[in-house]
């Protein structure tokens, strides 16, 4: 069992490097991606039995190249009938002779290739769900089944999504290389957003009884770490990594043993991972002050203040509020306003927080989430407005689509309920 895991981990690490090397030489991202998938499948079957080869990347490259040539050959009759745009016959030669790509070339080049891959997977021609799926596949090395399990959708849905995404990239004429500025900065923003979405998907889905699910949190952190290594000078990449680490560090305390939600204020802080928090702090310390502060760095700094507080009561809310004040100007939005309202309430009292929430009542973006009502309920409870608080908790419980959230809110409402007095208290 352990051996199988090691093979899987190795394949996931090496797959993007092989894909990158192949696409760099042969173009045709979609065909190369198919070929690499075939090679990975062969490795999954053969390596546990025959042992991992001395040069795993070369092995994979050889098998993938063969698969590519086979696919081209099978396709060639159809291709002759089509107009083939700028297809260099030497591509065939390179594909057919992978020995021409020395393994020594791979270590240096492969780090750039993974970066190019990440950028390619976040191509603007793709929808966000496609960007996520393709990133997890091509850069993360996850199988279609693993991605499907992670997002709780059927495997066929993900398979189609990835095929369409690859065709879109091909149709968009995307070249295998980093985009020039200013597109590069823009694309980096998209890449960070995709990684953030992957993390968020992993973080907010119910923990429940243990299912065979891919750890999206670990995958998001792994890819962001890789990006941070490749782009050490990019402060927002560091900021995102730190944010993920500070958030993930609290993971063990988020739900109790029965899978019930435990809010931040009630969490057992001794369950927080201090090593991960320390890593986040180190990254943040190195990054802050190196340039203009972006939203991920700000969010990381806020998360750091939470994680550094030994108890909920010791949280530096004035500092957190100050950071939200900056975040509101840098990256305004309803979710930021909501979080700022919580901080405001801690510093200036629940009524101040409630007043700010009022500004969100007409915001369409908040209309379909339970979060506004849930926060309002908490603040009303703090303000002592019990009847209104109970009403808000119940309203939030009705709107939410998350079962653990609903149960949590229903319970909070029930705690505020004053049962009718007994008819005969003496009975």
């Amino acid at each position, binding site marked *: 069992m352990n051996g199988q895991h090691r093979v899987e981990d190795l394949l996931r690490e090496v797959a993007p490097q092989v894909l990158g090397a192949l696409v760099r030489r042969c173009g045709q991202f979609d065909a190369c991606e198919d070929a690499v998938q075939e090679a990975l499948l062969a490795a999954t079957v053969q390596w546990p039995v025959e042992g991992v080869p001395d040069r795993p990347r070369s092995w994979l490259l050889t098998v993938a190249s063969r698969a590519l040539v086979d696919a081209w050959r099978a396709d060639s009759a159809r291709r002759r009938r089509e107009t083939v745009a700028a297809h260099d016959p030497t591509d065939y030669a390179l594909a057919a002779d992978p020995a021409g790509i020395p393994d020594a070339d791979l270590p240096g080049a492969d780090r750039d290739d993974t970066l190019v891959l990440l950028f390619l997977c976040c191509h603007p021609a793709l929808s966000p769900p496609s960007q996520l799926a393709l990133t997890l596949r091509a850069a993360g090395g996850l199988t279609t089944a693993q991605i499907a399990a992670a997002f709780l959708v059927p495997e066929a849905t993900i398979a189609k999504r990835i095929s369409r995404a690859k065709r879109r990239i091909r149709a968009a004429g995307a070249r295998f290389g980093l985009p020039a500025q200013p597109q590069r900065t823009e694309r980096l923003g998209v890449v960070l957003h995709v990684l953030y979405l992957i993390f968020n998907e992993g973080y907010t889905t119910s923990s429940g*009884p243990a299912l065979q699910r891919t750890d999206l949190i670990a995958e998001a952190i792994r890819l962001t770490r890789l990006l941070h290594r490749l782009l050490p000078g990019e402060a927002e990449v560091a900021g995102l990594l730190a944010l993920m680490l500070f958030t993930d560090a609290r993971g063990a305390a988020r739900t109790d043993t*029965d*899978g*019930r939600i435990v809010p931040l204020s009630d969490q057992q802080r001794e369950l927080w991972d201090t090593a991960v928090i320390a890593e986040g702090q180190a990254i943040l310390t190195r990054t802050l002050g190196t340039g203009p502060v972006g939203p991920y760095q700000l969010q990381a700094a806020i998360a750091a203040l939470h994680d550094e507080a030994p108890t909920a009561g010791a949280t530096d809310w004035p500092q957190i509020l100050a950071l939200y004040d900056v975040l509101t100007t840098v990256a305004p939005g309803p979710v930021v306003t909501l979080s700022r309202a919580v901080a405001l309430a801690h510093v200036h009292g629940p009524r101040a927080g409630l007043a700010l929430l009022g500004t969100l009542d007409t915001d369409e973006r908040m209309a379909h989430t339970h979060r506004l009502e849930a926060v309002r309920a908490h603040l009303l409870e703090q303000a002592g407005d019990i009847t209104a608080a109970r009403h808000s908790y*119940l309203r939030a*419980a*009705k*709107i*939410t*689509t998350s*079962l653990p959230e*609903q*149960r949590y809110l*229903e*319970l909070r*409402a*029930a*705690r505020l*309920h004053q*049962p*009718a007095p007994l008819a005969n208290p003496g009975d």
Partner: protein
Amino acid sequence: MKYLIMMFGGIGAATQDRSAEWIAGMHELLMKLDTELKESGECVASDALVDPSQAKTVRFINGAPVPTDGPFAEVKESLAGYWIVDVDEERALQIASRVVAYTEYPMEVRRIMDHSAQP
């Protein structure tokens, strides 16, 4: 044989006068039941539905299908969740009884149709 076991009601309807302890107990019972039925292999599928207040019903109005806000039935009679179990009727009723013993609220047990032709 497959049976559909149905639970009814919505937030603030049947359970609005219950104490927090009672509600916590209900959540615990449902979670435990779910785990047991999955581990025993009796459960084919089960799920909870979003509150009935969030439902939309498509009605035929003035000659056309029109989506309207709200559930088909009253909230207290709207489906809240279900279990599909692969058991005999006696067992299906036993499972439902376990929940009803606590909630004191009706649950419906319905046989699911076979899709093969029977002589």
